[in-house]
């Protein structure tokens, strides 16, 4: 085995984290994207800007504020205490929550674009064919937005895999819980274990390339359908 157990554990943890975050964001991000695409509320730009914030905030800054918020004196920390859930920092789910914030725009923006591209007409047609708004969403908007979903899911997954600054801030580098691949590689480099670092980096590079290749070779089909 070219990779150590620690390395494999980190990779597996990364995949679990990225998958969970992508799933959650598909559920959470879709209604947000739909609302942003369709709403005519005057202040919708504010919501759009808030969603886009993680794009411009340095990840370690985002991580630091989440650390504060999830800590015993912060709003999220107090909420979890009242709900009987333990503190979130240094846990897998704390990392999931932080990553959901961090990768939010990568899910919402492609979806929003896809929904906007559908335009009004098809939904009007659906309404004249007796489809209630929710029905039209599931039977017309979703199928037509499918390429957008693919892009959004892959971008979100890839972005979460590459996450580092946020994890650094609130992860605590606990093996199997928050020692994700990016941190593992960083530690190898810091400890001057360069060959281990090279090996892990190579594995991640190949994996990411294959995923992106899948995205870009499927595209023409998706566009036609």
């Amino acid at each position, binding site marked *: 085995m070219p990779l150590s157990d620690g390395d494999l554990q980190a990779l597996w943890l990364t995949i679990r984290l990225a998958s969970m975050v992508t799933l959650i964001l598909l559920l959470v991000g879709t209604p947000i994207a739909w609302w942003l695409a369709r709403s005519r509320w005057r202040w919708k730009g504010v919501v759009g800007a808030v969603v886009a914030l993680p794009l411009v905030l340095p990840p370690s800054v985002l991580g630091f504020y989440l650390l504060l918020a999830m800590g015993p004196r912060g709003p999220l920390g107090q909420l979890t205490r009242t709900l009987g859930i333990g503190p979130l920092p240094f846990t897998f789910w704390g990392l999931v929550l932080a990553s959901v914030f961090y990768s939010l725009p990568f899910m919402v923006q492609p979806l929003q674009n896809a929904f906007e591209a559908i335009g009004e*007409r*098809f939904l*009007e*047609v*659906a*309404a*004249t*064919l*007796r*489809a*209630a*708004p929710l*029905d*039209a969403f599931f*039977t*017309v908007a979703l*199928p*037509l937005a499918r390429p957008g979903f693919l892009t959004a899911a892959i971008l979100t997954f890839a972005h979460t895999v590459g996450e580092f600054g946020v994890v650094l801030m609130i992860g605590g580098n606990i093996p199997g819980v928050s020692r994700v691949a990016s941190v593992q590689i960083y530690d190898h480099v810091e400890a001057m274990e360069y060959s281990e670092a090279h090996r892990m980096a190579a594995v991640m590079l190949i994996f990411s390339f294959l995923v992106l290749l899948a995205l870009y070779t499927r595209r023409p089909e998706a566009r*036609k*359908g």
Partner: protein
Amino acid sequence: MDRISAHFHRQWPGFTLEVELELPGRGVTAIFGQSGSGKTTLLRCIAGLERAEGGRLNFKGEVWQDERTFLPVHQRPLGYVFQEASLFPHLTVLGNLRYGLTRAKTAPTVSLDQAVELLGIGHLLARKPEYLSGGERQRVGIARALAVSPRLLLMDEPLAALDLARKQEILPYLERLHDELALPVLYVTHSPDEVARLADHLVVMENGRVLGHGPLAETLSRLDLPLQIGQERETVLVGTVGERDATWHLARVDFPGGSIWTRDRAIPLGQRVRVRVPSGGVSLCLTRPEDTSILNILPGQVEEIAEDGHPGLTLVRVRLGESAVLARVTKRSLAALALTPGQPVWVQIKSAAVME
């Protein structure tokens, strides 16, 4: 109550819709006007696609909109045909047709097979919309709107996006629709051709207002409405085929007010037909002409006279019993014959100029 009553007063930036209409609850009502006249907006308001606050809409006794209620589009038992077919690209033709079927809760008045047959799209069912021609797509769009068994069919310039050949291809289908289904249709168009061929009732709009409306033949012969597009005005006589002359290949159409001979189009006796009479094919005489090549000479009465575009021309509306036709007469002839309203005249209608 068998009528459709629509009251809409709404302002958009740069445009106001002010409509108070009572329309028949059967037959095809054409809503005619130039672009920007508000006809599509009116249709969309009736459909509920535009929300005109404070509007009122009553369909045969059902309140679809008033001060307190607004029935959402998907709950109105209507069908809507858009200008571009807008077929769902992710479904086949059959999938598109079936979409409304499973959702419509009204008692089926039109079966899927009937719609498919009426529009002649049986051979296209398995295809995806991107593989259809423009005319085929529009026919599917119409069939799809019918498949939900609507009690009111709204059509927004369904032929506008098609070339002449496609239009000629689909018009017969629309005529069949009209003849075979007892479905009230509101048909928005800016084409006098479509109006003449399809409408039973005509609404004329300009700048968001209704200038006039009424039964087709009567409204078409009005001189105070902006109905002229292109070369000349025309009127329509609606009658039945009374006789067919095999020797001369002519057919006689009887209408309320007289009869005229036209080319025999192999239309069976007793069938209802429309005869379009272009104003340029109608001439007037004070005495009954003899030795003329024109077959149709009918007694009538001058009703109204108006200008006809060019300063040298006038339009004269002549009453033929219960019907009326328009005659294009030069001012010089008008003066020479001293034509005035109320004056009896002989009306010559060139049968060669009459169409089916």
